């Protein structure tokens, strides 16, 4: 047991130092990472600008036209009004999933009977094409905020529940045995061993769930009632204001990317500090 622990420590330190050496070698030869990231963005935006100027289609705006529309929509308050309408159902849905979904997943991981009852339903929910389910939700719950919250929950719940469940199930059995050998009861087993061990995966599930929630709210706003960001997309598309439509789409992409990046960095800081910020950028 002692030997194994030593091996593991050595292995980890070797991997750590190897990564550090690779990174410093790469930064000497290739230059800073941000430069490559900037280059990749410039390439994509450059191709977009050229495609928009040719134009490949009358309905395809250039990158600069989209940027101009983006700033115009910030200044005239379009984005502020739209997000004031988009965020409430998104936040409510995510809060429901964050508490209910995690509890559900933890309980599934702890109880075989509950796992067998729920697993098939969750797998169906995860694989079902939600765009096809949305009209059914409208028929059952109407067109108001309830339907949108339900779409957000349907999109994000399976990810949160299944990750929480897997986190619980992947608890190291030797730690459980250790807890039992120290006369630990079931409650201590859960609170001192299982939950701390699963917390990383639960947090990763939450992050994925929020990403699903963003997809859900955009789907809901496009398919149920065009409000918020969905209204900006629909209205500008119907009015042939394609630069504004692209700007609205870009805004939700930027918003969800920033939210998820912050969460990913938080996750790495709390649960995987050995990876540092670099892994946050490449993962």
């Amino acid at each position, binding site marked *: 047991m002692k030997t194994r622990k030593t091996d593991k420590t050595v292995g980890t330190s070797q991997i750590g130092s190897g990564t550090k050496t690779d990174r410093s070698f790469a930064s000497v030869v290739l230059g800073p990472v941000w430069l490559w990231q900037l280059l990749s963005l410039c390439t994509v935006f450059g191709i977009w600008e050229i495609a928009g100027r040719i134009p490949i*289609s*009358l*309905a395809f705006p250039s990158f600069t036209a989209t940027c101009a529309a983006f700033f115009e929509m910030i200044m005239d308050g379009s984005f502020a009004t739209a997000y004031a309408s988009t965020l409430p159902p998104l936040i409510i849905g995510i809060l429901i999933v964050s508490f209910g979904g995690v509890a559900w997943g933890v309980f599934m991981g702890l109880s075989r009977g509950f796992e067998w009852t729920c697993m098939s339903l969750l797998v169906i929910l995860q694989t079902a094409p939600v765009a096809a389910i949305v009209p059914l939700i*409208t*028929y059952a719950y*109407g*067109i*108001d905020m309830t339907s949108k919250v339900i779409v957000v929950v349907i999109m994000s719940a399976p990810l949160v529940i299944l990750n929480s469940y897997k986190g619980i199930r992947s608890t190291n059995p030797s730690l459980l045995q250790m807890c039992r050998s120290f006369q630990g009861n079931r409650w201590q087993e859960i609170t001192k061993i299982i939950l701390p061990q699963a917390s990383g995966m639960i947090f990763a599930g939450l992050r994925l769930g929020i990403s699903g929630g963003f997809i859900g709210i955009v789907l809901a706003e496009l398919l149920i*009632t*065009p*409000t918020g960001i969905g*209204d900006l997309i*629909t*209205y500008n*598309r*119907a*009015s*042939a*204001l*394609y630069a504004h439509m692209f700007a609205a789409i870009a805004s939700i992409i930027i918003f969800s990317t920033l939210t998820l990046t912050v969460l990913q960095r938080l996750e790495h800081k709390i649960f995987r500090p050995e990876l540092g910020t670099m892994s946050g950028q490449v993962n």
Partner: protein
Amino acid sequence: MKRILHGILVAVFAVAFTLSLGAFRAAAQDTVRVATADTLGAEDLVLLIAFEKAKARGLKIEVTPFKSDDVVFQAIVNGQMDIGVGDAYKMIQTLKAPIRHFYQLRRLAYFPVVNKEYYKTWKDLDGEDIAVHSRGSGTEALARLMESMHGIKFKRMTYVPGSEVRAISMRRGNIKATYLDLTRTRLLTTEDPERFGVLPAGNQSASDEILYATTDFLKESEDAIDIIVEEVMRAARRMNADPTSMAAERERLDLLAELPKEINEEITLYHQQAAMAGLFPPNGGGKGAASADFEFLTSSGRLEGDAKSLDVGEFWELGPLNKALAKMGYVNVEYSISAR
């Protein structure tokens, strides 16, 4: 031996692929591809019957339903479809798209349906919510016109796409006032006349569906366009003269076969009301329709500029319609739009 067989197989596949690609292209060029903005239903029978007649005159026509007007426009402007059914005024003005309307198929007919337990007149709607299709839609434009016509101000316009969804919401009580198409208006007011009623909407003759195509297609396929315009005009006139003939024609030509047989009664009722309301103009719109559209679209803010200063030639190609009218004559009619 194995190598030779492999070579032969590759050659056969290459030839078959090239031939099928060529045949596909040829077929695509011969066929007039028509894009509609919704699934085909009873209200499309005039167009479908016209297409069957055009096919009998040697044209190949293929109709594809899309999800919305803007997708239809994308398909036309990118050359994946030839004729669009809807309207492209805003796109022509904003993008200077080389597209022209050439035939007014159907006039706009949406009716202000209210829950009579709450509202009985337009004045009752002052400071209240109304549901319309979407921002910038025809129903929103109609609601704005009513605001100015009756000196009222709606508290909020909620956007609920699709007449069928709004009709369901009216039944469920989620919304109390909205604009519905002819079919759903009749459905609600006949199934519960105590609860649902229609407010007076006045007269307007803006377009609901116009046929449009790129200027290149209009030039290159002049003969095909002439046949289509003549046949649509003939079908519209026949429907106006005898609305009951539509159900019989549908059966004879085996159109909309997926709809149940019992729908024939609905089809007849719809076309009788459409004929009374003049939904399918017998002269294909033209300059008059364009002017009415300019008036309607500028007053509702969907088109920029003064209605009188807009040039019909920038939005319409009148050649095919004038040729058809010269051949088939002009019909004088007076209609009044009403849900009953």
